[in-house]
């Protein structure tokens, strides 16, 4: 029996066969992969997962792409299964008892959670027989699509806003895709790609392959629960751009409960966004299901989506789960990055700074209780966006290579700090 039934409209429930399609032809609602959970239930178990590879493919029974006859995926065999760190120092600093960091800043191969969705999307593109993949991206997705397309030996077209951090541009170009820098915001790039995707028969991972692509994010949630010893945490703070990740982590826990992989329980989901681009958190704070798009103005460029596709669903998840949301200023984002580095030795990108800073504010405001388990989602690597720190960090001492020079410098430092 096949565990994949096809696609189903999330709004009107119409069914479609498995195909590269993402929008319901009737109501324009998003299409989602429709599984036969009875088939999955008969296959999946904790033991089967634990015996699987140390990658997202240990959850292959719950993903919409097939493995090869040798049990290997089409691409991305080492993606995922990133560390879940018990963050005692940061927990002490924030005054919470049980704090964890799910660290996708070290996801293989391009250091962000996007490797999860792209490995699934490009595998699916191969199944569908495409020879070209494409995406609209704020950087992390660009890196990942270019890398996985190289591995899959597919052509790739990557569309990005022209003002991206140079680190992210270089970390895309090195894989030799066709990179198109568009003079506009991400939302403009995305709209252009929706029209390009309509005209050219390419696999746009976050457009016509989107139902499959988005399912890859569930593995972030599966891993959290498995690594916690087969239980879901009480609270999860998630950075939001398009709004998909928060909905898929939530879905992961729901599926695991339904399949008996983790006990029944309640997990509250919290959205973290920048003040300069926080339309989802604004919906949550105002408690409205109408999304008002914004023009992004934030250093957290990987979250700079002013018109998030899953904004409505992200709002619903935060609300239905009993969670909330928080905005963070650019200064708080930098502080968040430095706080995580200083306490846990983890260097995350600006989006991670947003998540850490939002978590701090949610705890201080009493939205997240101090005596329950909390997971912070760190989804990208700081070495991709060091630009924001250049003006804020400098070395303490520059000296000639002599011991006396060092002795003097050390004495000066100690007298300065009073140590």
């Amino acid at each position, binding site marked *: 029996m096949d565990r994949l039934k096809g696609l189903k409209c999330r*709004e009107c429930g119409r069914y479609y066969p498995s195909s590269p399609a*993402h*929008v*319901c*032809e*009737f*109501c*324009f*609602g*998003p299409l989602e992969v429709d599984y036969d959970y009875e088939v999955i239930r008969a296959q999946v178990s904790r033991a089967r997962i634990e015996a699987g590879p140390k990658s997202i493919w240990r959850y292959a029974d719950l993903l919409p792409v097939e493995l090869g006859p040798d049990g290997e995926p089409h691409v991305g065999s080492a993606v995922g299964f990133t560390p879940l760190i018990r963050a005692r120092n940061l927990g002490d600093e924030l005054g919470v008892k049980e704090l964890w960091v799910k660290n996708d800043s070290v996801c293989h191969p391009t250091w962000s959670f*996007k490797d999860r*969705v792209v490995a699934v999307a490009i595998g699916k593109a191969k199944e569908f027989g495409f020879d070209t993949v494409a995406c*609209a*991206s*704020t*950087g*992390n*997705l660009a890196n990942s699509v270019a890398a996985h397309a190289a591995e899959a030996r597919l052509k790739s077209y990557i569309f990005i806003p022209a003002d991206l951090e140079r680190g992210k541009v270089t970390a895309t170009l090195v894989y030799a895709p066709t990179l198109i820098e568009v003079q506009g915001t*991400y*939302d*403009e790039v*995305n*709209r252009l*790609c*929706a*029209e390009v*995707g*309509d005209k050219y028969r390419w696999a*746009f991972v*976050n*457009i016509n392959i*989107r139902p499959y*692509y*988005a399912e890859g994010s569930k593995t972030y949630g599966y891993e959290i629960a498995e690594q916690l010893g087969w239980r879901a945490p009480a609270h999860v703070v998630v950075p939001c*751009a*398009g*709004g*998909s990740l928060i909905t898929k982590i939530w879905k992961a826990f729901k599926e695991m409960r339904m399949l008996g992989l983790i006990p029944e329980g309640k997990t509250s989901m919290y959205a973290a966004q920048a003040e300069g681009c926080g339309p989802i958190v604004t919906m949550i704070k105002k408690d409205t299901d109408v999304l*008002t*798009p914004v*023009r992004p103005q934030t250093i957290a460029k*990987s*979250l700079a*989506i002013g*018109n*998030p*596709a*899953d904004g*409505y669903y992200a709002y619903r998840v935060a609300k239905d789960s009993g969670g909330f949301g928080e905005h963070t200023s650019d200064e708080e984002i930098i502080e968040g990055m430095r706080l995580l580095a200083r306490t846990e030795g983890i260097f995350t990108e600006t989006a991670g700074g947003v998540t850490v800073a939002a978590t701090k504010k949610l705890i201080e405001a009493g939205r997240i209780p101090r005596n329950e388990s909390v997971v912070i989602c760190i989804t990208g690597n700081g070495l991709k966006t060091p630009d924001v720190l250049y003006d804020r960090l400098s070395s303490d001492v520059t000296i000639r290579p002599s011991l006396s020079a060092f002795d003097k410098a050390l004495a000066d430092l100690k007298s300065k700090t009073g140590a």
Partner: protein
Amino acid sequence: MAVVVRIPTPLRSVTKGAAEVQAAGDTVDDVIQDLERQYPGLKERLVEDGGQIRRFINIYVNQEDIRFLEGAKTTIKQGDEVSIVPAIAGGR
């Protein structure tokens, strides 16, 4: 005012396969009315019973989201380009 309206794939069954059609009107609202006159059934695909544009549809006038302009009351000039684009796409 006559304008070009770009039609996304899911709506082309209503426009007899056309990816671009001509329509006339002084506002986005008028253009939708004119599209409905030419292609009966199109309006209900774009607009909810209460009159607001559906949650999963974005409309652009010359590449600008009409929610940054005056919504369905946004005025249209001769030669403007109107794009109808499904909202569901993207994600970093």
